[in-house]
């Protein structure tokens, strides 16, 4: 068990490329933290710095208030699961799991106990004598997790462990890892580029881009209260719709753009005052667009006329993609699978006024 404190951590490469530009994250004991972001955002580098596989160029890393910057990886009491499993191909499942313990010169009986226990937890008992090549991707990743478990580390590190698996197995394995976390209650740091995986797994999510933290919060807060346009667009699938417009004043404040005039909800009236006459970006999620003909209860915006371009019916729900008044951008709107539209259909929709987000055009920060 351990807490991890990351203070102003930096990674610079010899060619003066900044991979990590001063990151602060604090991880509580037993927390499941997901580092997520687009490729090249520095999430793997950050994880590898926690592991000790990358040198720290600046800032401090603490485990349980102990400075770890120059502690050798093997002395950090961590275990890591790699994307490509990193199993030793010439060793059986048993030997793969036992390798690290053998190096520690642990008594044979204890090694046997730990490995068989881990194998049981992960449902690998019948494969214990197999070589990695005789197993499927999911089983291999389970062995890699087993290899981490037997070491009884303070911290588990996962570097995109499910990326090599097919979609169905990925969903199954992420449940298993969560279950494992509930059982072991260890501190776990998990890297992924998949925001759905991040949302599904994390107690806390750290969203990174270009070596900078954009927001750290619980999944639901990230979804409801994104602090900036990047987070708003990154979390959620299909992604949030953005439309650029102007703030005008009539009997109240309004956001206007081609063919859309939306009254600013009361809580935002005050803070939007300073944007009067200026351009802002408005964000609205596909989930909060409603067919005016069907939705009567929610407080919706004024009518927005749209024409459906593409319909994706995924069974449980339908994603409708549309254009607004001849604008190039394609927006999306989610409807229930019982309300199926057809391409070319013209429709009047409204946006839930409680669920609007506004962003400063320059800083891209949320206007609260």
């Amino acid at each position: 068990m351990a807490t991890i404190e990351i203070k102003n951590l930096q990674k610079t490469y010899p060619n003066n490329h900044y991979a990590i530009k001063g990151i602060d994250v604090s991880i509580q004991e037993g927390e499941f933290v997901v580092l997520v972001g687009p490729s090249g955002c520095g999430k793997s580098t950050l994880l590898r710095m926690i592991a000790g596989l990358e040198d720290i160029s600046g800032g401090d890393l603490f485990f349980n208030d102990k400075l770890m910057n120059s502690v050798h990886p093997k002395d950090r009491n961590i275990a890591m699961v790699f994307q490509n499993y990193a199993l030793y191909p010439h060793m059986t499942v048993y030997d793969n799991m036992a390798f690290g313990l053998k190096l520690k010169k642990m008594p044979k009986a204890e090694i046997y106990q730990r490995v068989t226990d881990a194998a049981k937890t992960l449902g690998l008992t019948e494969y214990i004598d197999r070589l990695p090549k005789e197993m499927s991707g999911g089983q291999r990743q389970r062995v890699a997790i087993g290899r981490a478990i037997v070491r009884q580390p303070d911290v588990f590190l996962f570097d995109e462990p499910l990326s090599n698996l097919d979609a169905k197995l990925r969903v199954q394995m992420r449940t298993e890892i969560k279950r494992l976390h509930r059982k072991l209650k260890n501190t776990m740091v998990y890297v992924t580029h998949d925001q759905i995986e991040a949302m599904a797994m994390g107690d806390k999510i750290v969203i990174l881009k270009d070596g900078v933290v954009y927001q750290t919060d619980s999944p639901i807060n990230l979804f409801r209260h994104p602090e900036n346009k990047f987070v708003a667009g990154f979390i959620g699938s299909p992604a949030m719709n953005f439309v650029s417009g102007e703030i005008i004043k009539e009997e109240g404040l309004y956001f206007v753009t081609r063919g859309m005039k939306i009254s600013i909800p009361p809580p935002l009236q005050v803070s939007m005052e300073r944007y009067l006459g200026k351009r802002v970006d408005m964000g609205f999620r596909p989930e909060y667009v409603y067919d005016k003909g069907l939705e009567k209860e929610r407080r919706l915006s004024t009518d927005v006329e749209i024409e459906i371009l593409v319909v994706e019916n995924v069974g449980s729900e339908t994603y409708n993609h549309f254009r607004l008044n001849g604008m190039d951008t394609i927006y999306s709107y989610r409807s229930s699978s019982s309300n199926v539209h057809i391409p070319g259909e013209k429709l009047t929709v409204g946006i839930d006024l409680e669920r609007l987000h506004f962003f400063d055009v320059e800083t891209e920060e949320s206007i609260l």
Partner: protein
Amino acid sequence: MVSGYELKIKMKRNSSTKKEQQFWAYIFLFFPLMLLAIFVFIPILFSLVISFFDWELMASQQKFIDINNYIEIFGDKIFYKAILNTVLYTIGVVPIQTMLALFLAFVMNQKIRGRTFFRTAFYIPAVTSSVVTSIIFVAIYSKEGLLNSILGIFGFAANDWLTNPHTALISIMMLNIWTTSGYFMVSFLAGLQNIPNSLYEAAKLEGATKRQQFWHITVPMVRPVTYFVVVMGLIGCFQVFDQVFVMSDGGPNNATTTMSFYVYQNAFRYFRLGYGAATAIVLAGIIMIVTVIQKKYFPPNPY
């Protein structure tokens, strides 16, 4: 959408290209195959044929002597000496050159300064003519040569390395190890670069030292390359000829007569072509048996 008609045309075009491709493939294969046949396959068969004759270069009629050449081989003391020398040579050279090549590759694969220079330096002997390196080593091994001067500093008495029957074979072995290690190092380097870095990282996290990483990851992971290097090394050693020819001429007192040198001696010194061919066939047989044994008991890739 591809309509049925278009599909037909596509298939037709594909099948005709395939035929065309095959035609050109055979054309391209034909010429190298001809060359190989004239200079390799036919001579091999021909040597098998003449090994049953008392073959004289000038004679108009060759005398068929059945398996008498082979019978003679099994009573030939020098032939046994040649086999013994070749086996000693192989046992001395193959393990050392393999381990040295792997070790060099492991070191050259680390991030060290002047890596390119060292890689080139170790590889140069492999691309230098063996006659040239042999002549250089004759000079190094001579009584007033470099080796004796260096050993002299440490107080060792001068030795005439190539004319001393006790050291002649070892001297040639050392030359061969030096020339081939760099060559096989390149093979190992390619093998090492195929090992995913995450294996080393995983081992590092588990507390494996560099040495443990070498024995538990590098060595097993390059096993297919090791197999290749050992096979090529065995074949090379069984056939060692040019160094012997240049440096010691099989002497002193047959101390460095190897099997291929003995084949050469019989065929082109004593002009006993039939007998020489028979020894060559026996040599080929031995190489084949050893390779089969190796393949059976040390398969290239068990995992």
